[in-house]
């Protein structure tokens, strides 16, 4: 008879999650020091799909670089493009026609819903429920169709131009968007009955990985991560840009700080985005979509410029240091998930590993956007 194996009381082991793991939604690796099922310490390793977008920014001219922005976040590409065009327009003093700005807001919100839908499906799938993903993707497909008709692409849109848009929208866009709003309202009710009110789902998420307001501040968290922790912060309201002050919408905030709060914030954000789309379609002014004389060569005056926008994933910032030439001297992309993911290391300590994966899902990760 061999001796029974005895573990020492303080013995831990290292568990490697990723870089190829379905729960990490991309090439993300987490080194976890485990005490049984509990996490003692974690270190997130990123950079597996780093493409040096910021160097490309210095090497390309402004219009050439524009398409890079939609390759950062493949689920909510339009929000990032919006930030870039707003920055260049601010720096060069380009006037944007009102109609163009309204269409931008409508398309960004459609894109935000598409992104949240994908997150919703994937998140519930992380927790073991497969069918909501199929419903979510079905709804998302309608948005992709609407956007494909006017932008020409389904994922990596390059729809905006410095000063306006590439393509005007028509009656059918307005009609199909209205139909979608109706459809989505019904779907949201369905999701509430199917998922949000589900007792298993709620017991799993309530009280899971609570984040304090102070943690969010020290890490610079935004989007649902901050709004789920009682911070009423949304760039669309706090730092109004584009035509958002024209719309009547609310920012859902929950103070629990747990994964359920983050989930509820995003689900309610979809409803608010529907409101913005509806008002935008009602108010959509006529007129041109490009200024009369769009600048042929983009050369922002010497200086340092910053623009923040609220993308589907949170507070996206873009900083431009211009030396007055055709290329940026320095272009910094501040991605929201980078800061949101950073607090994972500290906050997952003491959690069960499956709870940590639920927490990770609630952050809404898009890895190319973290790695840039």
């Amino acid at each position, binding site marked *: 008879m061999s001796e029974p194996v005895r573990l020492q009381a303080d013995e831990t082991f290292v568990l490697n999650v990723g870089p190829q793991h379905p729960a990490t939604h991309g090439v993300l690796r987490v080194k976890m020091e485990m005490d049984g099922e509990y996490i003692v310490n974690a270190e997130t390793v990123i950079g597996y799909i780093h493409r040096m977008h910021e160097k490309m920014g210095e090497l390309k001219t402004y219009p050439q670089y524009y398409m890079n922005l939609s390759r950062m976040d493949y689920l909510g590409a339009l929000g990032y493009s919006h930030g870039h065009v707003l920055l260049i327009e601010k720096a060069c003093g380009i006037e944007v026609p009102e109609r163009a700005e309204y269409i931008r807001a409508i398309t960004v919100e459609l894109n935000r819903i598409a992104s949240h839908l994908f997150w919703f499906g994937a998140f519930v799938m992380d927790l073991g429920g497969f069918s909501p993903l199929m419903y979510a993707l079905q709804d998302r497909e309608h948005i992709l169709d609407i956007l494909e008709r006017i932008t020409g692409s389904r994922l990596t849109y390059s729809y905006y131009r410095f000063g306006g848009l590439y393509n005007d929208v028509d009656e059918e866009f307005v009609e199909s968007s209205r139909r979608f709003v109706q459809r989505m309202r019904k779907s949201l009710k369905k999701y509430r009955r199917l998922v949000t009110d589900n007792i298993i789902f709620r017991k799993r998420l309530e009280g899971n990985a609570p984040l304090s307001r102070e943690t969010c501040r020290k890490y610079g968290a935004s989007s649902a991560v901050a709004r789920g922790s009682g911070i009423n912060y949304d760039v669309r309201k706090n730092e109004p840009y584009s035509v958002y002050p024209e719309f009547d919408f609310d920012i859902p905030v929950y103070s629990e700080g747990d994964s359920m709060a983050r989930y509820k914030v995003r689900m309610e954000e979809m409803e608010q985005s529907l409101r913005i789309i509806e008002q935008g379609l009602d108010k959509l002014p006529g007129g041109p979509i490009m200024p009369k004389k769009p600048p042929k060569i983009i050369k922002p005056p010497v200086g*340092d410029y910053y623009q923040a926008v609220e993308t589907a994933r949170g507070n996206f910032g873009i900083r431009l240091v211009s030396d007055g030439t055709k290329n940026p001297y320095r272009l910094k992309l501040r991605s929201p998930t980078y800061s949101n993911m950073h607090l994972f290391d500290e906050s997952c300590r003491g959690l069960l590993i499956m709870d940590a994966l639920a927490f990770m899902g609630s952050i809404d990760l898009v890895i190319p956007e973290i790695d840039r």
Partner: protein
Amino acid sequence: MILDTTLTALAVLFPETETEDFRSGAADTEPAEEEKKKPKKDATSRKNGIILRDYAVHGYHIDVQVDPSQLLEAVAIIDSLEYFIESITGVDWIKEEQLEAVYDFSRYDFDLCRVVIRTRTSRATPSLPSITSIYAGANWHERETHDFFGIKFEGHPHLIPLLLPEDADFHPLLKDFKA
């Protein structure tokens, strides 16, 4: 107003320099004239001190340049006023043989005020104090800036490559970097 509170708090760092106001209409200067002045201030040797910027043009309110030795003090003031950290990045001013580190801070409440803290270090031996002891979230931002510019952050707990490969010995955002 948090803008004034922040200005008063930061002014302690510069007892001998006046706060410069570059907001349009602030000192009876027309915007066109102001544009001409800016290049000199922005690009080359600017003195340490506080500059008020026009939010509509630049997208931030307070622009502070500090000596590296004052950095921790300045960030501690910002922290005590409940700002959140937005990002840290660098700029390579190769003609002046200097590297600049840029720290962005903003607020969660509706009292909008964006603060930019800059500090410069020599290009040959770039080194700055780490602010991770004040803002834990500076950790990745400093590692990224170390990756891209080679700035050594003294006191950083884990200054290894973050986005670049683990054996990377190059700094791609330096202007003299050749792939």
